[in-house]
């Protein structure tokens, strides 16, 4: 803290320096001490300064620029701070796009810095020139190309402000090589205002009172909360609201872990592979209270039959999300923390025991039909659920779980136990296979005191498997669990259910993952039999270093419950 104060003081005085040195000072002034990236021609001046400042600013070399973005995302999601990724021009920059798109749709604060060819070469098809501003426009909250060193402090200050204010998102700043070499009189002032930008709309007190009245009179209220609660640091306010009003509360995949999974009012996940009770009862509640979520199609199923009987209250920071998918009877715009804080005194203390019992009854149905067989199976093949079951036992719900995309992701989110917020890190909106391994690196480096377990399928693992090199070189003690069914499991499940078992290009011939992990000096173990599983998981969690655990699971298991595409939430299938 003291050190940061000195840096700030130093940087508010004007001094002459190069553009690339200015970039470093900007990052330090924003409190950045860790960035992910990959060097190359057009970003070399900045890397030269990173070398000089390596005691203050750690640079983690990933093995691919996509890995740098996902690591920055994992860092941001675990800490609530802005993740930073750096790449060179051309292919370096285009390799960032998947991570940027992922951060955009999942509202993750990230600043990407790319090198660019010298400004006099712009538009000349120079070596490694690409129009990254044009390419990244639809997937960034904001982007800007710097062509003069003097622009650097102001633009980077804006970048950090935009990335992490209001509804967060990714910002890309493209800096030409001559701007990095150029000189400027450096002074840094943090940005906290942009004329055309309203990050947080004011809370409308009338709407808030109407919402409170509706909630107070509701017989069967239900909350669906999303990541807005976590991004808005509103966990305590949220918990106070649901406890005071006694409202059963369900989460979207990105809302998971905002309150403990064991909370008596936590009724589970909504959506395609969510829990039975909250999906079915979405179409029975009388007031549906959406908080910091955006009614994604994976959550709502068929909109024409979604919660038509209910009055809908939507607490939301982004005005463009209100009435986008589901019409809100009352919209309360604003920051979740402030809105919920103001809502609390307007609510009357209440309980809904009979209504809550309905959720419990339906949970019992799901438990008997699905959950018991997932978590404690008696059939021969191993299930993904039982692996999660053992991880829960070993971590006692205190780990950060980073999941990739597919069947294992749904299983991880359905069954992982969480005691703390910011513990569930996954690619929700974009569904980016390959997300988990690099994101776990970022999460572990952002929260080194916490256990970080990556749960990955054998397909997604191979999309960013090269980041084992980052784990090796930077000594990141993450735990990697690959649930190997030798299939692209979720696609295979759909082929089974909707394409008459035509398994087109979903079966994988996999390499020896143990040898690969060992090649990176990572301790590795494969589990084939159920008897070996508990000990292997315990050993993995007990390890102080990174650890790779491969579990050979049943090849053709399906994830249930399931709302088929286009079906109503009430028509969720148990088999």
């Amino acid at each position, binding site marked *: 803290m003291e050190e940061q104060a000195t840096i700030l003081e130093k940087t508010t005085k004007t001094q002459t320096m190069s553009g690339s040195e200015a970039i470093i000072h900007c990052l330090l002034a924003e409190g950045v001490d860790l960035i992910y990236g990959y060097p190359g021609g057009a970003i070399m001046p900045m890397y030269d300064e990173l070398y000089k400042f390596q005691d203050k600013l750690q640079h983690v070399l990933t093995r691919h620029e996509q890995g740098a973005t996902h690591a920055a995302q994992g860092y941001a999601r675990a800490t609530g701070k802005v993740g930073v990724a750096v790449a060179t021009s051309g292919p370096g920059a285009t390799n960032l796009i998947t991570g940027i798109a992922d951060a955009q749709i999942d509202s993750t604060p990230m600043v990407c810095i790319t090198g660019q060819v010298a400004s006099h070469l712009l538009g000349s098809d120079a070596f490694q020139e690409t129009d990254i501003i044009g390419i990244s*426009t639809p997937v960034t909250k904001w982007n*800007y190309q710097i062509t003069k060193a003097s622009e650097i402090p102001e633009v980077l200050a804006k970048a950090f402000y935009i990335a992490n204010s209001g509804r967060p998102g990714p910002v890309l700043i493209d800096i030409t090589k001559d701007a990095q070499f150029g000189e400027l009189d450096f002074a840094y002032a943090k940005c906290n205002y942009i004329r*055309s930008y309203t990050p947080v709309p004011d809370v409308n007190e009338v709407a808030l009172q109407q919402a409170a009245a509706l909630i107070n009179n509701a017989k069967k209220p239900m909350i669906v909360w999303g990541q807005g609660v976590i991004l808005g640091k509103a966990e305590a306010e949220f918990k106070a609201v649901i406890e005071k009003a006694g409202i059963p509360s369900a989460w979207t995949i990105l809302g998971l872990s905002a309150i403990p999974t064991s909370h008596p009012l936590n009724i589970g996940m909504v959506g395609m592979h969510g829990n039975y009770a909250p999906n079915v009862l979405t179409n029975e509640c009388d007031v549906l209270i959406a908080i910091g979520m955006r009614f994604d199609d994976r959550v709502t199923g068929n909109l024409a039959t979604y919660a038509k009987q209910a009055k809908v209250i939507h607490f939301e920071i982004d005005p463009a999300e209100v009435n986008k998918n589901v019409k809100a009877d009352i919209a309360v715009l604003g920051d979740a923390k402030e809105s919920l804080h103001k809502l609390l005194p307007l609510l009357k203390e209440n309980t809904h025991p009979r209504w809550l019992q309905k959720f419990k009854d339906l949970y019992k149905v799901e438990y008997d039909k699905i959950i018991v067989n997932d978590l404690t199976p008696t059939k021969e093949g191993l299930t993904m659920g039982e692996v999660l079951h053992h991880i829960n036992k070993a971590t006692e719900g205190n780990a950060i779980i980073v999941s990739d995309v597919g069947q294992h992701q749904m299983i991880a989110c359905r069954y992982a136990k969480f005691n703390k917020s910011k513990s569930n890190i996954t690619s929700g909106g974009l569904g980016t296979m390959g997300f988990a391994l690099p994101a776990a690196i970022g999460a572990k480096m952002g929260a080194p005191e916490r256990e970080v377990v990556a749960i990955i399928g054998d397909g997604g693992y191979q999309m960013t498997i090269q980041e084992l090199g980052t784990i090796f070189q930077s000594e990141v003690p993450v735990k990697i669990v690959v649930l190997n069914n030798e299939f692209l499991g979720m696609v295979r499940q759909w082929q089974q259910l909707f394409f008459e078992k035509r398994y087109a290009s979903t079966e994988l011939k996999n390499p020896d993952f143990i040898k690969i992990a060992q090649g990176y000096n990572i301790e590795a173990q494969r589990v084939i039999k159920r008897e070996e599983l508990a000990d292997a998981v315990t050993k993995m969690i007990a390890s102080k270093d990174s650890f790779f655990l491969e579990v050979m699971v049943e090849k053709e298991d399906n994830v249930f419950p399931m709302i088929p595409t286009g079906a109503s939430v009430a028509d969720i299938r148990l088999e």
Partner: protein
Amino acid sequence: MNDQKTYTVSIYTENNIGLLNRISAIFQRRHINIESLSASESEIDDVFRFTLVVKVTEEQIRKIIGQIERQVEVIKAYYHTDEETIFTESALFKIKSDLLFEERQIQNIIKESNARIVTVNKEFFVLEKSGRRAEIELVYRELKPFGIMQFVRSGRIAVTKTEMPISSLLSSIGNQEETAFAKA
């Protein structure tokens, strides 16, 4: 799609390279054709104005306005129906000069359509016609048989019949800015 209507979209923005790309991408992503587009200064210093015309439903345009306003450098966006705006387009016709003197009919067309001769020289003359789309199309159809060397029509520009609340919005933002500075 029967309830599609022509909407004039007015977007007040900061002047920024790439913003047009950002705005047009919002339409492209939803597979909506931008029928016309013009960009200019606005009534406010340092504030830029885009005027777009699209044919969509009211629900679509309402959501699109939300997406446009999300963009950091967009100050405010509005949509209006034809009935709510005064709008015009402008067209230029380049025609061989000898026709002007040899074909009396052309002189009549110019007179009746209230078109304006911008320039005349030995080879060609240029006719400018402003007005509604149908008026311009009428002139085009009438001149076509004589031969048009070049034709171009601008995008729609429009002002609203009611007051555009942008000025009061900006002055309230300006006040906030002053307060923010005062605090700092």
